[in-house]
């Protein structure tokens, strides 16, 4: 194993964590996660169902605390959820009692002083709504919008606060395939447009490979050489970590041979319980990848 200067990573990178453990009721879910993500990355996370992807995201968000280890954003340890990390969930991201525009500007209102002018917020909110192409629907309630539109409002709602990192947990998981492809392209355009940092959890490999500049595979299917029995799972680790090339944002790349091969590789590495890699053989090729021992 190549020894890396970890403290350098921690200083340089936007998101950094070492030796992260999460244990629920005595059951290890996340087992010694080491991860460092640099600025501007659209980092996607995939893994089998129940491996702990959402758990990892909740730890970064501050919704829960790790049992061991610490997570840093721009070198500072994260606390409870706060406005430097935005979040878009699969559901319940919007406030049902507020109209679309009210949903978008509510963060501004939360953080405004007593004498702030609401009109200024509304103008700024409309700018963001234009960007997500929903300015025509500003006055509707969330329940009057389709699932895809709701998610776009949720993105605008988070972006207006200019978070250091936008966390997304299967944001498009409930959408039908057509809508899903549209909003993927839309997210990429937005990401290129305003150069934000995105941490994107999905169980859809194609989506992860298509969107990401880097893909992390989280999985409990590996062996550490010790006797392995299915009844006492060891908790998920990062079993693969690839840099992805960004070819023009067209959905045709989804079918490209290179991507197909990568997806097959990831399926084998992370998704097949019969094929257990040894810890020392993980494919952690990404330059920011590291493992503490």
């Amino acid at each position, binding site marked *: 194993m190549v020894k890396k200067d970890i403290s350098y990573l921690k200083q340089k990178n936007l998101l950094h964590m070492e030796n992260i453990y999460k244990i629920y009721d005595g059951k290890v879910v996340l087992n010694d996660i080491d991860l460092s993500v640099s600025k501007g990355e659209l980092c996607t996370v995939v893994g089998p169902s129940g491996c702990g992807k959402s758990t990892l995201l909740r730890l970064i968000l501050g919704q829960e605390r790790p049992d061991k280890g610490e997570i840093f954003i721009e070198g500072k340890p994260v606390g409870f959820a*706060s406005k430097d990390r935005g979040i878009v969930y699969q559901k319940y991201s919007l406030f049902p*009692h507020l109209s679309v525009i009210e949903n978008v500007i509510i963060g501004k209102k*939360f953080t405004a002083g007593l004498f702030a002018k609401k009109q200024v917020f509304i103008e700024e909110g409309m700018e963001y709504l234009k960007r997500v192409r929903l300015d025509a629907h500003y006055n509707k309630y969330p329940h009057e919008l389709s699932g895809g539109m709701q998610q776009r409002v949720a993105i605008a709602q988070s972006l207006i606060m200019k978070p250091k990192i936008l966390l997304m947990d299967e944001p498009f998981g409930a959408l039908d395939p057509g809508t899903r492809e549209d909003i993927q392209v839309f997210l990429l355009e937005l990401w290129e447009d305003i150069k934000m940092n995105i941490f994107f959890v999905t169980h859809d490999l194609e989506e992860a490979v298509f969107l990401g500049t880097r893909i992390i595979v989280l999985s409990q299917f590996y062996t550490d050489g010790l006797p392995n029995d299915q009844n006492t799972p060891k908790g998920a680790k990062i079993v693969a970590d690839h840099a992805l090339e960004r070819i023009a944002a067209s959905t045709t790349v989804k079918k490209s041979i290179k991507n197909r091969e990568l997806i097959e590789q990831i399926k084998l590495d992370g998704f097949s319980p019969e094929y257990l890699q040894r810890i020392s053989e993980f494919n952690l090729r990404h330059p920011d990848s590291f493992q503490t021992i």
Partner: protein
Amino acid sequence: MPIFWGIHAKPPKIWKIVLGLLPFIILVSVYLTASHVRLERNSDDKLLPSIGKMIQAVDGLAFTKDKRKGEYLMLRDTLSSLKRLIIGVLAAAVVGLFLGMNLGVFPGFNALLMPFVTFISIIPSLSLLPILFISFGIDEMGKVILIFWGTFILITRDMYLATKAIHEEQIIKALTLGASQFSIVYKIVLPQIMPRLIETIRLCLGGGWLFLIASEAIAATDGLGYRIFLVRRYMAMDIIIPYVLWITFLGYMMDLILRLIIKWRYSWYVEMRKGG
């Protein structure tokens, strides 16, 4: 398509109106027949007075000034009762809302008060009646407190459950948008449980009327419950029956108003419930 029978029935609109009226028509006809039969046998019968007799009685109470007090008795009864009911239920709604909401949001507050609230919720409200009347006499306070007590526990519990039912994602989302704890309680939680509060009040009004009439029956000088228990001594069914109908009508109107408020002010809530 069957019009009436089975789970596939789709009664057309006109049928729905006819079907809905049917039980009322039957009830009224049964009453009229029975009343007629009894009065035929004994014209002084008091149990099932004729419609004419009831109209006469209502006229005397509602549209003629009482000689001694110079007031319209039924109006005075109605206003006194409504005042007690509305003050009691409203106070219960306000206390229940804030107590339930804070129990749901703040674990420390919950640890402090939840066991206590659970304990006092078991006290049967009516058993408090003697205590209240010993302490407050026939004053308004005793009656209002009884109504308050009889409804606020249910409202508190329901507001607690409604608060708990708000998805954690909503709270976290608000935090990521820079919300303070104060904002979370008053801008996210409160507006989302308001329509549920109104629904709970609708359910509690039934209990509210019960406690109102019980307290008026025992210690009062006016009120709808006072009146029917007063004239009960003379078996004045010609007054009691119109009063009961009037109470029912008032209850129905209050329910209707609350329902309309939800429909007009909280369209998002109605839609969300439909959508599940």
